[in-house]
């Protein structure tokens, strides 16, 4: 997680052009005093008021090295989380904050459970960085990136959660490509030589991910999700029967409704491609039992029904989709964000360490 950032930050400068001229309404030092005292809610409220992240981060940098390492490192993650919530100046400020904290953790001599939990928390935040995805972005210098990954792995070479999280980060490279035209790269209709070349590159990445997830399937802490994510890779490799087998195994070995929903959605998608539309309909209905308002399964189900001529039920589902709440959640929307869904749990653990 101790990123690379140097070259990356400059690519984000253009996004800062409207950084507010206002001075920060809250100072990092005052918030940190509250943080050390365990008043986390007050700190969250204070961070929500920051309007100029660049100024805030500069201020943070001036004081950060003098602060005790454990609360400082966790406080920095809270700052990153708040930046992710902010509509302004994401990117440069986020990675700048993370770099500051990473450097501190790396050079502190700390080891053990706290360092592992901190890395897991930091990686989950970066994985949740929406379009930023600093670790996944192919523009990031891979030499620096490899050095960082090596650093984490040397510190925690066998920890399955760290290995899993690093693999999720690799998978985000795939999702970066799957955006928009990336999806169509995998479509055989994309005929240009460049598209063919891109498809080849994706195949290499899929092969890499396949090996990593396969090796993680024997680790009980991450086995179920590694299995489902391996199924996703197999699906992209057009190996649908293998996908279905993995999804059966993954779903049977977890009590996590989020993961079960994903497994059922992928099962329906695979069955759709295999032409087993009645089975696909069943899979989408089963997914909706877990998340009744999820758009991904609703529209998948509606599309199958539409093509079977069942227009009345299709209309009913579409009407429900179009009248849904703006905050309606869908487990699928979290999929590309790796471990970000676990951020609240990581944060809770890290706050306990601060106390």
């Amino acid at each position, binding site marked *: 997680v101790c990123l690379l950032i140097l070259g990356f930050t400059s*690519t*984000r400068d253009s*996004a800062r*052009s*409207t950084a507010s001229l206002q001075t920060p309404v809250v100072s990092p030092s005052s918030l940190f005093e509250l943080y050390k005292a365990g008043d986390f809610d007050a700190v969250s409220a204070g961070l*929500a008021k920051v309007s100029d992240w660049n100024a805030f981060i500069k201020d943070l940098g001036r004081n950060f090295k003098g602060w005790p390492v454990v609360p400082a490192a966790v406080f920095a993650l809270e700052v990153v989380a708040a930046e*992710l*919530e*902010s*509509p*302004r100046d*994401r*990117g440069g400020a986020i990675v700048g904050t993370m770099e500051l904290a990473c450097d501190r953790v790396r050079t502190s001599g700390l080891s053990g459970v706290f360092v592992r939990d901190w890395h897991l928390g930091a990686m989950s935040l970066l994985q*949740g960085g*929406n*379009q930023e995805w600093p670790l996944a972005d192919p*523009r990031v210098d891979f030499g620096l990136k490899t050095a960082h990954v090596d650093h984490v792995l040397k510190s925690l070479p066998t920890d399955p959660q760290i290995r899993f999280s690093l693999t999720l980060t690799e998978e985000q490279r795939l999702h970066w*490509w*799957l*955006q*928009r*035209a*990336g*999806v*169509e*790269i995998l*479509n055989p*209709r*994309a005929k*240009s030589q*460049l*598209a063919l070349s*891109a498809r080849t590159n994706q195949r290499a990445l899929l092969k890499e991910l396949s090996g990593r997830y396969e090796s993680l399937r024997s680790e009980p802490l991450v086995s179920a999700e590694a299995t489902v994510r391996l199924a996703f890779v197999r699906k992209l490799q057009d190996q649908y029967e293998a996908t279905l087998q993995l999804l059966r195994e993954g779903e049977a070995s977890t009590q996590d409704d989020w993961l079960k929903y994903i497994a059922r959605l992928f099962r329906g998608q695979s069955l759709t*491609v295999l032409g087993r539309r009645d089975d696909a309909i069943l899979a989408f209905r089963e997914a909706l039992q877990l998340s009744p308002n999820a*758009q*991904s399964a609703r*529209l*998948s189900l*509606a*599309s199958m029904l*539409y*093509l079977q*001529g069942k*227009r*009345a039920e299709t*209309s009913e589902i*579409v*009407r429900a*989709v*179009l*009248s849904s709440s*703006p*905050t*309606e959640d*869908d487990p*699928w*929307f*979290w999929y*590309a*964000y790796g471990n970000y869904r676990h951020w609240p749990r990581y944060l809770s653990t890290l706050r306990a360490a601060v106390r």
Partner: protein
Amino acid sequence: MRHLLARLTAVGSLAALLGQTQPVFKSGVDAVTVDVSVQDGRNPVQGLSINDFELRDNGVPQKILDVSRDAAPIDLSLVIDLSASLTLATYTLPGFFIGGRDQWLHEGVRGVVALLKPGDRLQPLQLASNIRQVKLPYVVGRPATRGSHNRLERTSLFDGVVAVLMQPAEAGRRRLIIVLTDGIDSSSVLDYKIRADIMDRSEGVVHLVTVEQTQRNPQFADSIARVMSVVGDYDWILRDIASRTGGRFYTIGADEPPARRLREAVEEFRTRYVLRYVPTGVERTGSHDLVVTTPGKRYQIHARRGYFVQ
């Protein structure tokens, strides 16, 4: 805004649009209607009659019963892409922080509403991770609380278009779907072939009005440029949607407000011919491929590629 609401009232409320809609599939009855755009360069061709058209259903020439223009009221679904990749420009372009993009959208939507006639109906929708119907004043403002859209907000553009197309058609009305978007999709789940099958079988005409690279959010511009450099033809999938549904693909250039293109999209639909025929010499049920031509004339024809009868 008051004018805009007044116009909405004049053309019928959203409740009316939803409540009065009957699940009638026009192609399932004896006569089939096909919206056809005929252009000579950028200009619509006027004055054509039955004898100017040739229509083939599954390769079999059909007898066209009548040709009309602008005869039936329009059900217009207006889909506005409010995802971060397009709308964050509001926050990042100097001078546009307050109201810039909202105003930009507002003008466009108001322009479309002004073109509706009595009997026409409007269904405004907004698109990001989810697609959903909104009250019209809402569509031109950012509905999410500040900040909440940054986490996990994605864009289900292709799924959203399909959702709108799967709505039931109503006999005696024409359906137009206009999508204002930057073309980025990050979270659609429907398989390409499924999407294409639905587009081929639905009766809506989809006009896509897309924002050129220069208008897209600068935070995303270089990422998109990189993908474009690999893919080459970045917009082919959008043109494919338009082509399959008999619609058109428009682009908005740098600094160009959307109003003109949106207006153009509605006006283009108004100039279309509606051909009606009863299929003969072909199986009634199943998939039907449609080809419409104007023999002997080099016009550009846009019409849906087919339909399906259960």
